[in-house]
């Protein structure tokens, strides 16, 4: 080191030389053998705190992403047809949106067709064990979709409390009562969480049927394929006098079945079948896996990339 350099410079350079970017404290410390290691504080899963994602900075970022990235991409992939959206003008907010679950695309599609005043004030119940099992995933979904962690395999008071508190605080909630994506395109057994929350908070339930997302990104697929999607909003539902959450849940499931029928036929046909108790089961035939998939029928005829993007030469 040159002796004429000022002392401060010599100290600075010396400090750089001494720095050894390896081992503690550059890396995490090891734990002494004699010290009992406490159970790690759970900061993921249902214990992940999503409060930050509902503050204004995060909401602003989410709104920009939803409106400028998610919606355009969704419209390219799914070109959703929306039926019955006018019911949203009548529903008293906040509401609980209950939908069937076929694909990871369900949430972006549903959010993209909701009016902006609802879209930007909506949280999404997401599986704690899937979307919140890593911190980076938890951050990502909380920010991009306002996801909140829900325990789907067992009753969890914290999950229910968080969701109920949010609804009571004025947030709309999207929840998938099947607890996960369908493996074959048909409905799975509904769980009681959505009905319980509606009963607990007294808020209306808006049934929503999503048809076609299964064709875009089914469970297990690694890349999406374009397919038209139909989103059908049903009439908002509230608990009848004397109705308990279990019965209300059954009624929600039946209503979604009727909306599924409507997607495959038309509103009048579906209503008549519902009135006659002949609505086809949305749970599909009781048969082996390939026959259940077969029973879904072929993809919609406009699922043809070449035709959609072909240059019309005539």
């Amino acid at each position, binding site marked *: 080191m040159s002796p004429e350099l000022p002392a401060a410079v010599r100290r600075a350079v010396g400090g750089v030389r001494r720095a050894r970017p390896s081992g503690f*404290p550059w890396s995490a*410390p*090891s734990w002494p053998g004699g010290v009992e290691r406490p159970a790690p504080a759970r900061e993921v899963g249902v214990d992940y705190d999503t409060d930050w994602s509902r503050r204004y900075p995060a909401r602003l970022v989410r709104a920009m992403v939803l409106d400028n990235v998610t919606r355009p991409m969704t419209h390219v992939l799914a070109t959703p047809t929306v039926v019955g959206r006018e019911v949203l003008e009548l529903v008293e907010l906040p509401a609980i949106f209950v939908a069937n679950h076929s694909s990871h695309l369900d949430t972006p599609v549903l959010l993209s067709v909701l009016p902006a005043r609802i879209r930007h004030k909506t949280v999404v119940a997401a599986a704690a064990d899937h979307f919140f099992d890593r911190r980076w995933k938890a951050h990502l979904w909380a920010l991009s979709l306002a996801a909140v962690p829900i325990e789907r395999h067992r009753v969890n008071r914290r999950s229910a409390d968080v969701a109920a508190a949010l609804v009571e605080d004025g947030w709309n909630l999207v929840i998938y009562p099947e607890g996960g994506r369908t493996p074959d395109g048909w409905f799975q057994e509904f769980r009681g969480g959505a009905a319980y929350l509606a009963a607990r908070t007294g808020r209306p339930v808006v049934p929503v049927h999503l048809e076609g997302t299964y064709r875009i990104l089914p469970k297990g697929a690694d890349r999406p394929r374009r397919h038209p999607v139909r989103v059908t909003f049903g009439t908002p539902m509230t608990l009848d006098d004397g109705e308990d959450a279990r019965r209300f849940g059954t009624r929600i499931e039946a209503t979604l079945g009727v909306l599924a029928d409507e997607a495959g036929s038309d509103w009048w046909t579906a209503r008549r079948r519902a009135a006659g108790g002949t609505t086809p089961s949305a749970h599909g035939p009781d048969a082996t896996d390939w026959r259940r998939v077969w029973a879904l029928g072929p993809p919609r005829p406009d699922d043809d990339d070449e035709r959609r993007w072909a240059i019309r030469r005539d």
Partner: protein
Amino acid sequence: MSPRPGFVLEVDRSTPPTLFWHGEEFSLERLPTGSRVVYGPEPLAPLADPVGSIRDALLHPLGDAEPLPALLRPGMRLTIAFDDVSLPLPPMRRPDVRQLVIEQVLDLAAEAGVDDVVLIAALALHRRMTEAELRHALGDRVYDAFAPYDRLRQHDAEDPDGMTHLGHTEQGEDVEINRRAAESDLLVYVNINLVAMDGGHKSVATGLASYRSLRHHHNARTMQHSRSFMDQHHSELHSSNWRMGRHIAASGVKVFQIETTLNTDTFPEQFRFLQRREWEWTMRDRASFLAASASLERAPVRIARQILHGVRAPHALTSVQAGEVEAVHARTTEHVYAQQRVVVEGQTDILTMGLPYICPYNVNSIMNPILVACLGLGYFFNLYTGKPLVREGGVLILHHPTPNEFHPGHHPSYIDFFEQVLTETTDPVEIGKYEESFATDPWYVHLYRTGHAYHGVHPFYMWYWCAHALDHLGAVIVVGGERESVRRLGFKRASTMADALEMAQDVVGPDPSLTHLHAPPLLLADVR
């Protein structure tokens, strides 16, 4: 979650390096397997309602004292004395606990119609506080109401008209304290009890005393017989102060003592790693450490010092007691012990400690070599009850750069002590022969009274503070210390901790046991 108690770690192969203070810098040292590291208890939860607790303490005093409002009446002379800038360490965030207490005392005095109120900073022979320091301790409201009218004063132990001799204790000790305090109808003392040695009769008997009085317990003999001075039952310093305090009470000085304890929440968020156990450092702690150590290491010392002395501790009030001195102090000591006590089984051959940038006598100043010795051998060595952490004949290893640097305004007599006395002898008993000349030097007295200088005798007290440790230890080694300064102090110097351990083995023999005192948080080792 309730705070965890103190803890003694036995170092094994997977123990990460241990953090040492090194003056204005830090060092991570890998201690030998089998070493022990003593960690203090985590900070206790603060009082939920500090203002309400203070009011409650004033209205429900301990001992045979009456509630404060009953002691206040129109026409009386009320003096409120308070601890000076040496407490707490580092200075706490505003509002300082002294402000909280004094504002309430003044509210009660105002309600009672007391006009003659004077506030006195109980400096003893410490330097006078600056306006900024007074404002920090008392708050602007109190400062602006009292300072312009000469009602906010600083104790002047050399003011011939400002002291009153109250006689002698049964052991012949002079008791001389501040005249205004002695002649008041009521003396309210507002204390901060950071360590077990603070408070009690020491507040008035030392804080408001003169050199003539202090010399009876601030001497090598008393310190050698205070084992330790954190242990009231084995401290000659404590006994002497208690004799004087009782004499003051018997002389008719009515003292209403208010004592407070703080938790050991010592450093703010950006220095949080200092008080965490190393294996629990989060990524944020490690990043803070790397950023802080790199910045402090590369910054000029003056800047590093300025940064660190700008730190305001998030200390929080854990208890407040008021009333009769001894009853109050007994309760206060319980709270201090609850915060700081750690049981340690057995002594050690080698005791290590990292010394920080601050001690009670260099707030907003420079830690000169004498203060380094005092902090290590005086304060940290004495943080025990029962037996010293290190065995007799053992080795103390300090980690500090020990620069030969003095604050000429604050520590003028230290410079001469370092150059003239320590070059002759480092024996605390022998240096006593020079004490009188420093204590009565008119230049030092002038600087003490009119500037911001510690009293001329103060460096002697710092050296006496080391007397017990110097008597007890086989050797003192300073890691990373400046060669000439360390030699002048009579210690040995080592470049690295490994070298220091090698050198220590020459004194204590092979395969020595080693214990490291990890602070912060501050602790009191209960050695059994």
